[in-house]
């Protein structure tokens, strides 16, 4: 290898991380803290005696998340990839342990460790992506062979999804399922297999819904709600009203009226609506642009990875962020039926923030070594 070629290669390999991505992340993180305070302070004062109750927690998690992101950024993800297999088993055990924990709001989602509680399903999502990137990038694996797809992924991931269904946390199951399918798709799975796998699933679901009437009314009424959100359930109606109340420019930060116990979960699942009331359509477009920019950079980083592992990992992270954002915004704008997924970086909640930050850390890590095509 001549010196000139090495020099040329060096020029093509970017050494610095993606500053734009970091900036977008930090902007959203900071704005998320503002919105968590705005939407939670009155409730916090009423319920916990301090208007700072939620924001204090969230700020603490933000610090933890930044540290975690930096650690992830510094690690050599390729060398550590083999650890994803035992890590996956550990998270599966954690998913079992949650059932021994007291339920919150009727579901066993949290692993409660003293003052800190984390959602193992969030961890499972991340580890699964890491594991799949590691496993699917193995050149020996023939993804055109259906048998190699079913074994070992179906039992491993299926067990995790089964446990999460039992929590229950349907939103997370949908998110992980779509993430896994997306990664299979990018890893080179044959379209025929995707279709043959998806067709019977859709068929069975349709029969269950329409022939046996399971949740049929809910689905039909949701279709009405898409057309006129005021016909929807209380949550859906209040979310639409909250957004509508904002108009072009919003009522101003802190001036939202809907967060005063009209809009449910204004600081978690419906933070996007509450934000929309206060900063209006213009503000939301800025938020959407920041999210879009992160996803755009994620895809860019994926496509310029020097190897398949980096490609799949960056794509998986980006893809799961996208699904998460799309489902949340789809729900609060009354396009999708209500599924309890928080909005990454903006919603109150430590696990979500930590996992999203780790995801960004992974993208930043991978952005250090990209190749311009």
């Amino acid at each position, binding site marked *: 290898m001549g010196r000139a070629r090495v020099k040329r290669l060096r020029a093509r390999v970017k050494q610095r991380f993606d500053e734009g991505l970091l900036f977008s992340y930090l902007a959203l993180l900071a704005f998320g803290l503002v919105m968590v305070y705005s939407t939670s302070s009155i409730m916090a004062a009423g319920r916990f005696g301090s208007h700072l109750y939620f924001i204090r927690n969230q700020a603490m998690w933000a610090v933890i998340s930044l540290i975690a992101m930096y650690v992830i950024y510094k690690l050599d993800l390729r060398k550590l990839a083999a650890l994803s297999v035992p890590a996956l088993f550990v998270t599966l055990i954690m998913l079992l342990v949650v059932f021994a924990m007291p339920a919150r709001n009727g579901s066993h989602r949290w692993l409660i460790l003293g003052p800190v509680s984390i959602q193992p399903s969030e961890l499972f999502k991340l580890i699964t992506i890491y594991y799949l990137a590691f496993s699917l990038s193995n050149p020996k694996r023939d993804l055109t062979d259906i048998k190699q797809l079913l074994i070992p992924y179906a039992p491993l991931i299926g067990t995790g999804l089964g446990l999460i269904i039992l929590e229950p946390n349907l939103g997370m199951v949908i998110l992980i399922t779509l993430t896994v399918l997306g990664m299979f798709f990018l890893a080179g799975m044959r379209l025929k297999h995707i279709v043959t796998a998806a067709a019977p699933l859709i068929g069975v679901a349709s029969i269950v819904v329409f022939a046996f009437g399971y949740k049929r009314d809910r689905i039909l009424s949701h279709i009405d709600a898409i057309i006129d959100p005021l016909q929807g359930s209380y949550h859906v109606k209040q979310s639409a009203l909250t957004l509508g109340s904002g108009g072009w420019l919003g009522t101003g930060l802190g001036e939202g009226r809907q967060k005063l116990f009209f809009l449910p979960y204004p600081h978690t699942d419906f933070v996007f609506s509450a934000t929309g009331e206060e900063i209006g359509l213009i503000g939301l477009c800025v938020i959407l642009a920041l999210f879009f920019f992160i996803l755009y950079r994620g895809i860019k980083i994926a496509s310029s990875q020097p190897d398949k592992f980096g490609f799949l990992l960056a794509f998986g992270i980006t893809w799961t962020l996208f699904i998460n954002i799309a489902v949340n915004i789809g729900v609060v*704008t009354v396009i999708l039926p209500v599924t309890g997924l928080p909005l990454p970086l903006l919603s109150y909640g430590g696990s979500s923030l930590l996992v999203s930050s780790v995801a960004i850390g992974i993208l930043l890590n991978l952005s250090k070594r990209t190749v311009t095509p």
Partner: protein
Amino acid sequence: MTRTRQERIRLGVIFILVILFFAAAVARLIHLQVYEHDRYSSIVEKQSSGRVSIPAERGLIYDRNGRLVAKNVIGSSLYAYPSDDAQLRAAGAFLDKYLHLTPGEAITKYKLDVDRFRWIKRRLNDAEAKQLEKMTVPGLYLRYESQREYPFGTVGKQILGFTDIDNIGQSGFELYYDSLLTGKNGFADIRRDGLNKTYRIKEEALVKPLAGNSLVLTVDWRMQDIVEEELRKAVDTFGAQRGMAVFVDCNTGDIVSIAHYDPSDEDREKPTKLRALNDQFEPGSVFKVFTAAGVFDAGIVDFNRRMDCENGAWRLKGHTLHDDKKHGMLTFREIIELSSNIGIAKWAIEVDGDDMFKVYKRFGFGKRLRCGLPGEASGRLVPPGKWSDYNIAAAAMGHSIAVTPLQLASAMAAVANGGDLLRPHVILGHVDAEGRVRRDIDRPVINRVVQNASLDSLKAFLRGVVERGTAKVVNSEVVSIAGKTGTAQLPDTVNKVYFQNKFVATFAGFFPAENPTIAGAVILIDPQPIHYGGLTSGPAFRRIAERYALVNAGLLSFPEKSFDEKDRPTDSTTTAPNLVGASQEFAQELAEERGVALRTTAAEGTVVWQYPPPGRMVYKGDEMLVAVSQPGDSVMRMPDMTGLGLRKASAFLNFAHVRYAVKGTGRVVSQSIKPGDSLANDSTCLVECEQPL
């Protein structure tokens, strides 16, 4: 090329999906935030704002001299509004203890529930309010409300009426003028949250409450107090069933005082009636005043002409008219002063029935005067088409018609002021925004009562009634009074006849006689044993007039003694002495001292019972019945009841626990238990009575 073609294509598909989603999201946001903005934000505005009513202060009520007779005070009321189960339990437990209920009873008794508003107790007294203010019980709160208070207690309460717990008028003035007094509630817009908690009041959208009108009454509370007290005394002293009185300013029609007293009324704090205008009665001789006015108006009066009063009995169209005393030839003046039924009947018959009817109507009889207080009765005046000479005679002396005390007082005021019937009224005016009293009403003349004559002679006659006639006891050294007495039998509505021994005693008049200011009427229903208006209602009227004149020194007049000393009214009445506990001998002395006789059940012993009771007005020379317990004789002995009034006899038999049956009415002529026989508890006595001729 680090990426395969397939990878690039598939990544491109994903990127297109991402772009499509963001496009869809922005489109949806434009739909919700721009297109639906107006509709949605108005819904949000509606659900997050509310309106609270700010109650208007109820108008105050003043008397004619500016005394505050109905005011508002802030009082506390206790209510429950628990927001969760813990508060519900805490509130329930506290109330169980506080109200001494069995555990758990408060929750069922007051139907307490989470997020439900329930009154526990309205209008707490001061001690309770102070005690509760110090405590904080979750779910229990105090609300401060404006409450009505009447500084003069029950005085004039009959006029004012009362308000209910929500400050809405329920009777009397408070009811009739509720819309004027209520005012208009204001409101304030508030911010509220999804849990229905109020956050703050939007200052810009506040509509101030409009306080109710403060009204000034024509009633003088000082006079009202005098009238109520004297009426009560008269009812008690004369053993009447009830009494009524109305006094008006005869120059303006202002009702200065209006009252009734019925010992059986239970709740004087919450009167529902104003009998002085709700009730009507047969006026009797007092009505001769208006007949006389009609005679004057007809222009046929010859002061020197003497009318034959038929020595007390006159047959007319199959009926016999009686006079109380036998009179021979009397002038018109003497007929009024001595109250001769036969005399006034003869004069009235000389005037036409139609003309008399018109005069009575012009005096305001037979229809409501619309004085502005609820429940006014119209009285009864039969149209003249049906009138025979006997009907004319009956009406002339105040029979077969019915009047209210208010009508009587107003008609008397018309005589006093020289002939204007004024609409009686209770509202003098209102207090304007600057706090000045605006007079709303000024001498509302309904009509002239006479057209062709002056009433000066009639007024002089009425003064004569008091100076020389049937109402000599009314004559006062302090204020000159003119007026007319009336005594009429009460109708027995069950048997459609008149009671032989139940009367309405009336005195209607005005004072000072020379320059009248106040006209009025005092009516006692069924006074016993004395029933003459001149001796019962008359003295009450006099005392009211005297006391009022003393309060208003301008009314004092010390009339010249225009009569001879021999004409000086001799008081023929006295009060029954208290004889119970005295020995028979001493009782005899006490009775003699008062000029009353005694009828006893035994010749010696101790008086254990008497009738009439001590303090009751009796005639001098009348007999009191006393029960005497003899030493060494444990049983009561039967007295000789022959000649006693039925009331006195039955009072004794009731006292002695003797069952009795009565035949006939009037005075006792025979008794089945012989005088001196001992009375066992189960004896039965048949008493026969006859009406004395």
